[in-house]
């Protein structure tokens, strides 16, 4: 499943990983000579949530479905925006403060499409990809309040082009 996911769209990088995300290596795969713009979103673990000090986080996913939805996001953006390549990488397992939980990177010939696609991808991921975060504090842990997921987050409304 994983292998198939990663090669479904030849140049897209869609991955769930349990090791630290190598942002530089991922980004370098996206840059092609005909591109001129790359936009990256790097989401990493904050040291606090609602005034409480975070110790660490744990992420889990419904992996085959998460792969499918991440692939759908990249395919949707490829269909709707003039982008070249896209990477969507999410880490699972235990993450310490400052570690990257999600990396999204988009290359394109011109910057508007890359900005639009990158922002759409992280919004869609947060609302439509089955991944869950548990936050560990001194004295306890809670599953993060999230959003009821659904297909509409993946492929509608159209990517913001503001």
């Amino acid at each position: 499943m994983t292998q198939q996911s990663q090669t479904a769209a030849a140049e897209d990088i869609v991955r769930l990983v349990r090791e630290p995300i190598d942002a530089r290596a991922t980004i370098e795969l996206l840059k092609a000579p005909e591109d001129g713009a790359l936009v990256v979103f790097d989401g990493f673990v904050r040291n606090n949530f609602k005034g409480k000090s975070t110790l660490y986080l744990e992420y889990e996913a419904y992996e085959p479905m998460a792969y499918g939805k991440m692939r759908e996001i990249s395919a949707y953006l490829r269909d709707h925006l003039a982008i070249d390549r896209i990477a969507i990488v999410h880490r699972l397992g235990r993450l310490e403060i400052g570690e990257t939980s999600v990396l999204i990177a988009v290359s394109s010939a011109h910057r508007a499409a890359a900005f639009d696609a990158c922002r759409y991808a992280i919004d869609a991921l947060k609302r439509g990809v089955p991944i869950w975060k548990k936050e560990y504090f001194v004295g306890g842990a809670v599953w993060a309040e999230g959003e009821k997921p659904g297909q509409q987050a993946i492929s509608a409304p159209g990517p913001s082009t503001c």
Partner: protein
Amino acid sequence: MRHMQIRVLFFGQLKEIVGASEERAELSEGARVEDLFERYGRRFPKLAEFRGSIAPSLNQEYSDWRTLLTAGDEVAFLPPVSGG
């Protein structure tokens, strides 16, 4: 009436309520996603409280509570997501 076996998956806080990430359920033909959920809701009343915030999936696609099940289906009850 024939019976069908369904694979049921739980994640996040639902997994903790049920105490398992995966179960095999036997249902009669004609059962829908909501029937499967109701069965677990009777066993785990706390699970039933979550129904309004849960999205069901069928074979790794977002589904509807009214969808009919087929033998071998994989159903998951997805609590609010918080990736990113």
